[in-house]
């Protein structure tokens, strides 16, 4: 099953490599990973998406907790939460109908055109991982020049918060 795991970790050199290294050393899956400092510059928030059986995900959270740089680990699947991912993509539009297709799809997926040249659109979409997958598969491969995805960011809903 797919799990979104949120981590608070010390914003120190090497902390990220400990997390990444753990996944490779113990042969855990890692689908995406995003990390940035929080309002407290000494703390980074890391969101990672992984898949595995309940037993494996339990081990993943326990092993993450064991890392000395990790302050907190939360499996967001245990909470109501919202997840978002940012997609930036450059699409080629050489023919007139390509321009139409791009604009229509961007509209349908609530995206935004952030830059246009004669033959290129740079598009931004913020949505769930699933929606972004859908957008990319809908596009004709011929149109795609470059794809950048941020990896998933997620936060729980309601009154509870993950704090250091």
């Amino acid at each position: 099953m797919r799990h979104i795991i949120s981590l608070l970790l010390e914003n120190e050199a090497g902390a990220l490599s400990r997390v990444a290294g753990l996944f490779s050393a113990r042969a855990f899956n890692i689908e995406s990973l995003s990390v940035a400092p929080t309002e407290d510059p000494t703390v980074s928030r890391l969101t990672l998406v992984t898949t595995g059986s309940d037993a494996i995900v339990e081990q993943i959270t326990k092993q993450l907790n064991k890392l000395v740089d990790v302050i907190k680990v939360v499996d967001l699947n245990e909470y109501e939460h919202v997840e978002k991912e940012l997609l930036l993509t450059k699409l080629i539009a050489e023919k007139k109908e390509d321009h139409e297709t791009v604009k229509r799809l961007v509209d349908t997926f609530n995206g935004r055109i952030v830059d246009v040249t004669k033959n290129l659109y740079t598009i931004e979409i913020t949505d769930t991982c699933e929606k972004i997958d859908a957008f990319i598969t809908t596009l004709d491969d011929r149109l795609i020049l470059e794809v950048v995805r941020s990896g998933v960011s997620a936060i729980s809903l309601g009154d509870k918060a993950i704090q250091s």
Partner: protein
Amino acid sequence: MSKKKEILRGAEIFCRALKDEGVKHLFGYPGGAVLHIYDALYKQDDVEHILVRHEQGATHAADGYARATGKPGVVLVTSGPGATNAVTGIATAHMDSIPLVVFTGQVPRKMIGNDAFQEVDSIGITRPCVKHNFLVKDVKVLAETIKKAFYVATSGRPGPVVVDIPKDVTADSCSYEYPKNIDMRSYRPVIKGHPGQIKRASKLILSAKKPMIYSGGGVILGEASKELTKFTQILNYPITNTLMGLGAYPATDKQFVGMLGMHGTYEANMAMHNCDVLIAIGARFDDRVTGDLEKFCPYAKIIHIDVDPSSIAKNVPVDVPIVGDVKHVLKDLNEILKSEQDKLQVNKNELKSWWDKIHEWAKIDCLKYDRTSSVIKPQFVVEKLWELTKGDAYVTSDVGQHQMWAAQFYKFDKPRRWINSGGLGTMGFGLPAAMGVKLAFPNETVACITGEASLVMCIQELSTCLQYGTPVKIIILNNRYMGMVRQWQEFFYSGRYSHSYMEALPDFVKMAESYGHMGIRVEKSSGVENALKEALSMKDKTVIMDFITDQTENVYPMIASGKGHHEMHLSSERELA
């Protein structure tokens, strides 16, 4: 009145911090990146530096020291090859949760990442085999980092910590103050077990009809032998120890059924297989212990007490997990059991028939070997050593057949007496570890039971033994093979002994002499006792005893890979249905 803070150089801070931490011995080897530190060491006499002959020896010696004393072992090596040579020892300590603090020199900060002379990414290389590591980027955090390193290494589930110190940091100066306490928001090990879980566990323990206690190295690391012994004796339940846990419960006690696992006793493994409640204490369900997981303890409800939550339910699902320090949890359990004495009587008859069953299994005498042989049987040497040292020596070992025979035939009644590389299985561990133990306990008998293949992997430390006067007794069970490799090749590769025969062995007697020690070669069983007596009587001499043993002897009993506890192989003549 506030004391004026002293301004010290990084190298001096290093020495002072070790002193303030109470470190007595530092195992190390100098080199370019640590020369400032070595200069500072020269000017002090609070910490004794032990010059090893190879950095692997330093880490193993510090490791042996830590296993025997319970205090952290401390190591200092230079950058690059100094650090990489130390890695095997660090990984060895990591697998067995041994507290080490290893200081590695690093090239000056400005040169890091430039492929400088003797530069290696020590933090990156050691990351997967340490509990934690630190790169000290500023002399102002050096003292605090050293404090943190000792705290992390020794608390919770212990382990090795590496502190990488760039050379220029050891030249910089700042005011020195060693922190008394340390609090890390990201690291707070759990000590007390959850009272509700302990209550649940005690109910399950008291309901057992065929109970089994399985305890591991965690009991030794957690200094909980006394509590474990009390717990076991209140209950009158059978107990087995893992390889790492030997000595946590007295091996000569009637409730002890021997070691379990691949080369464990028949009665221990059969009791594991048939028990209805398994109480796992400070053990981690290692594959050499469990055999095939599908066949592991099929009838048992399992209670697991461990300080490391990630050890629980890692390999085997558990019914009652208790996260906490084993000493605290056992104390709490003992309190409950004391107040519920009446319930101990409930299953009295069932417990009696369970013990009868276990005694029946024990009658098979699974550790039987030919005691009349004139060719030296390796088991005989270990048994004699046990007799002559009255079971009270510190015994280190390397890895392989001799290690298993030592574990089976030297009956350890006390914790911290049995010093071996259980998890990583590191050949070359025994001699330097023995040296570390002897430094900690100069008046105790320290023996290293080894093989002719293992010993030479760190043979250079014989020089260190001479220099620092650490007279250890080295017992080579010399079968001219890498014995355990040969055994597996005999069993599983139709006797194709591929590269396991030790040709061109040195003359170990001359080798001992050339290093300034004593050597004795023994070729007949009749000479074993006298040789051991002679060696043990030479209190001030390191002695190598080269016992020429039966080449074909195998370690029995044995559970082959992929088999369960009830599928043991007893000997070449004796098979079990």
